[in-house]
């Protein structure tokens, strides 16, 4: 550790590759000063992928990096690589669409997309460079999202531009790989392959399909050696687990298969790896490691609404050091890089996979964003005002606050349990929305986006004062069964005065377990449609419906004693 600190305190002029690529050492890399070996690996990758010109020109590759940053709404990387962005030809537009789809919609990427680029006139060497550059773009965006460095001197935030429109399909297409022709087979003593034989015991197929660029292969192996292998901060098992969980979040069958094998070599039983893939909360690992995997998994979708993104403070609270957190971020960035490479090249699994991802796995995690048309949401009544705010008209935001305060505050009151805290949280929601409004890309209604921020803000508030959360065990969720079976009065409202009714409902709602409470609040208090509520919670519609129904049945149990027919005190019947 002392060596690292000594290196860290030296000036940053020691990274000539980064200076050559950017004109300076960008803050993105300075933010990783705890881990010089990681910066060195990144420098080598950038040099091999971006700076060295082979088939694609450097401006073309910087345009690809900028495109990847654009589809993930990453202002920092857009600013860093946007300097060379210029009007492109039709052929180059096809290249950017290719990169945009691979970076943002990897599960839908297939041989067909590669063929489209081939038909446009790019050869396999150019396509390989495009895939590698796109993967590097995901690496850098992951770093920037988690580390959120300040803009470097001389860089400016990107100006909003026409969004890329992919020739997308919402269907899961499985096409056999690999997609590209391979270069000459390297000699037996090719250093990267020797390294794989030593570390893995085999040469993964992903690294056999990139032989057209041996220099890039060397940089990739160095990244593995400098980020994954050292154990001075996080353990090897922790890092392999990060790669496994991130790959599962990206629905990457290939890397989940490789990681299962690697963890097995490290002594983790296959069943334990399977559990990490399905739900790491139920794996037999320490609470701190669960928190670590929670946070890094968010980096597979760096588009989370404000308040639900990567939380450095959470990891500090679990005792992780700054160096460990930076290493976890770098590991997650490396995982996204490797996953994107595989999706773009179609490398086939090295082993029969224990888990094959498919259509049914899409949107399996909360917050996962369903790709949609890039057209703005068609019926958003706030669209005009939002556009004015995005164009710098600060005062227009006042209309949005006035329109939505009631719904946001009612939702928060139902989550946090009292009006005073809800009022403070409501202000926070609008401040976060204003701060991030440039990232609102109109793929949902503004009101839905706002409510999703409110939910994240409210649940974060609850986490911070967990003892206040009233009755999580109010009902055994698995064994829930209606017990109040008496008929209700024809006009139950008449049995209880309005003020008391209001109080009864409030108490009953607040007694619901959080996940049912929020679902009921959105549907029955805030009056969102089923689709809007599902979108705000990042759930599929059937999952949202199930939560709403369970919540309503639980409310019925709570309210029944006050609204059953007065003369009716014994059950009418029993469930069969």
């Amino acid at each position: 550790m002392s060596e690292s600190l000594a290196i860290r305190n030296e000036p940053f002029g020691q990274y000539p590759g980064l200076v050559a690529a950017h004109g300076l050492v960008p803050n993105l890399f300075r933010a990783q000063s705890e881990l010089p070996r990681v910066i060195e690996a990144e420098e080598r990758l950038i040099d091999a992928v971006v700076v060295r010109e082979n088939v694609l020109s450097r401006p073309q590759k910087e345009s690809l990096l900028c495109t990847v940053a654009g589809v993930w709404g990453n202002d920092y990387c857009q600013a860093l690589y946007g300097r060379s962005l210029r009007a492109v030809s039709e052929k180059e537009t096809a290249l950017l669409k290719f990169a945009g789809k691979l970076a943002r919609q990897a599960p839908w990427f297939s041989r067909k997309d590669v063929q489209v680029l081939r038909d446009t006139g790019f050869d396999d060497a150019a396509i390989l460079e495009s895939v590698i550059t796109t993967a590097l773009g995901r690496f850098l965006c992951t770093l920037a999202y988690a580390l959120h460095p300040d803009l470097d001197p001389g860089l400016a935030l990107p100006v909003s531009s026409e969004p890329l429109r992919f020739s997308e399909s919402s269907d899961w297409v499985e096409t056999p790989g690999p997609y590209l022709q391979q270069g000459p087979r390297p000699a037996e003593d090719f250093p990267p392959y020797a390294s794989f034989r030593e570390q893995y015991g085999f040469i993964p197929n992903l690294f056999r399909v990139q032989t057209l660029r041996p220099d890039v292969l060397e940089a990739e192996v160095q990244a593995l050696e400098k980020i994954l292998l050292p154990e001075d901060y996080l353990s090897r098992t922790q890092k392999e687990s990060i790669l496994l969980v991130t790959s599962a979040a990206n629905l990457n069958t290939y890397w989940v298969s490789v990681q299962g094998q690697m963890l097995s070599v490290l002594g983790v039983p296959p069943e334990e790896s399977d559990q990490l893939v399905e739900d790491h909360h139920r794996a037999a690992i320490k609470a701190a490691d669960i928190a670590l995997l929670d946070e890094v998994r968010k980096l597979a979708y760096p588009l989370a609404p404000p308040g639900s993104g990567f939380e450095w403070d959470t990891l500090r609270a679990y005792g992780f050091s700054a160096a460990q957190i930076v290493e976890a971020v770098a590991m997650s960035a490396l995982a996204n890089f490797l996953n994107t490479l595989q999706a773009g090249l179609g490398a086939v699994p090295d082993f029969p996979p224990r888990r094959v991802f498919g259509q049914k796995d899409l949107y399996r995690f909360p917050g996962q964003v369903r790709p949609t048309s890039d057209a703005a949401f068609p019926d958003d009544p706030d669209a005009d005002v939002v556009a004015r705010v995005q164009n710098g008209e600060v005062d227009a935001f006042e209309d949005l606050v006035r329109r939505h305060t009631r719904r946001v505050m009612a939702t928060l009151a139902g989550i946090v349990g009292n009006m005073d805290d809800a009022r403070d949280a409501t202000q926070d929601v609008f401040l976060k929305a204003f701060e991030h409004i440039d990232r609102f890309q109109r793929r949902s209604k503004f009101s839905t986006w706002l409510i999703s921020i409110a939910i994240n803000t409210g649940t974060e508030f609850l986490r911070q004062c967990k003892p206040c959360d009233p009755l999580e065990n109010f009902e055994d969720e698995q064994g829930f069964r209606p017990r109040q079976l008496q008929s209700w009065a024809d006009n139950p409202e008449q049995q209880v005065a309005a003020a008391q009714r209001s109080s009864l409902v409030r108490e009953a709602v607040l007694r619901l377990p959080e996940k049912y409470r929020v679902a009921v609040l959105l549907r029955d208090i805030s009056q969102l449609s089923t689709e809007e509520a599902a979108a705000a919670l990042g759930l599929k519609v059937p999952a949202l419906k199930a939560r709403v129904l369970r919540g309503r049945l639980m409310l019925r149990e709570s309210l029944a004693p006050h609204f059953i027919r007065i003369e009716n005190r014994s059950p009418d019947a029993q469930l069969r």
Partner: protein
Amino acid sequence: MLSCADFLAEFGDYLENVANPDLRARLEEHLRECKTCRVIVDSTKKTIRIVTDSDSFTVPAENVESIVKDVMARIRKKKP
């Protein structure tokens, strides 16, 4: 015929009048035979009505304006 457990797992769309015709027919067949589930459907509909109509989480108008004022003051302070 559906069991009560099946009925309770499936009747969410029925409550909101969006069940497809086939599901609706199966649920109504069960309801014709099962008084308990009729009670549950009736009382759940009333629950929704009571919750929706209640002003349990209603925000008074004066609160709205004061929040608008506070939020905009904080934004303008940050972005003069």
